[in-house]
């Protein structure tokens, strides 16, 4: 029944945009964060250096770009075995559903992509 439907897995969704590290700062300034509003509830691809790792049923990484823009990424539980070996300082590319921003961008239902 559609009323009991869960959200689709991020693996099945095509990314609306890939934000390269060099563009991340431009998107994060107060004026330009509004430009990201068009991607709310859509899958986006981001990359950055892992600055913090937490775990509560699934992993959450805080990524920091070279311009000190922060992105919080909460992974799907099916990613636990893929992300468990990552450490602080490593670079990672992630696809997740963009939810909005506090003083950092927030992505949920994240999956790890191969880092190019």
């Amino acid at each position: 029944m559609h009323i009991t439907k869960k959200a689709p897995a991020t693996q099945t969704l095509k990314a609306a945009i890939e934000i390269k590290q060099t563009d991340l700062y431009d998107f994060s300034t107060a004026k330009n964060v509004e430009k990201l509003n068009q991607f709310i509830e859509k899958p986006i691809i981001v990359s950055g250096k892992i600055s913090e790792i937490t775990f509560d049923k699934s992993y959450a990484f805080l990524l920091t770009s070279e311009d000190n823009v922060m992105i919080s990424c909460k992974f799907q539980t099916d990613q636990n075995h893929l992300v468990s070996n990552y450490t602080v300082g490593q670079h990672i590319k992630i696809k997740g559903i963009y939810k909005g921003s506090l003083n950092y961008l927030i992505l949920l239902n994240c999956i790890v992509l191969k880092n190019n």
Partner: protein
Amino acid sequence: MYKRLCLLLLIPLWFTSFSIKGDKYICRNGKVTFFSYATSENIKAENDQVLSLFEPETKKIAVSILMRAFQFEKSLMQEHFNDSYIESDIYPKATFEGVVLNFDKDLSGTQTKIINGDFTLRGISKPIKIKADITKKSNTYEIIGETELNVKDYKIKVPQILANRIAQTVKISFNFKYNHYEK
């Protein structure tokens, strides 16, 4: 200089009301859960992307909650929550600013205290009191508590057809783990 200025713009304005002198502690993966117990359906949603700052010296606490980060078991309920009840496009965040009464920053262990403050949801601010356990361990803090909110206080419009699915009073519980804020 310009980059630092732009970065400052990212910090919500209400964080700047904190005193410059006091040590600050930050929590970026705070957890807020709400429960609605109704006759036809119990609803639970969880948000573990909550941001909070705590300043033990001034006893101030500030919380910022991105409403779209609440996750529900059923995606349709999540849509209704954001599109109809909260109107998250118009009111993307809920905030709380308050003070912990009679808090002693020099005590280790757990203190049970009342936090007085204003909770703002959908642009409406209401004073609330929250009973919370505040635990100091090494250079970290953990604050756990719960409170109740009346749906009507924040002008949340529930369609008549769904009235028996949403409780009039919603129970909110939270758990914030703070580390020292290194700028």
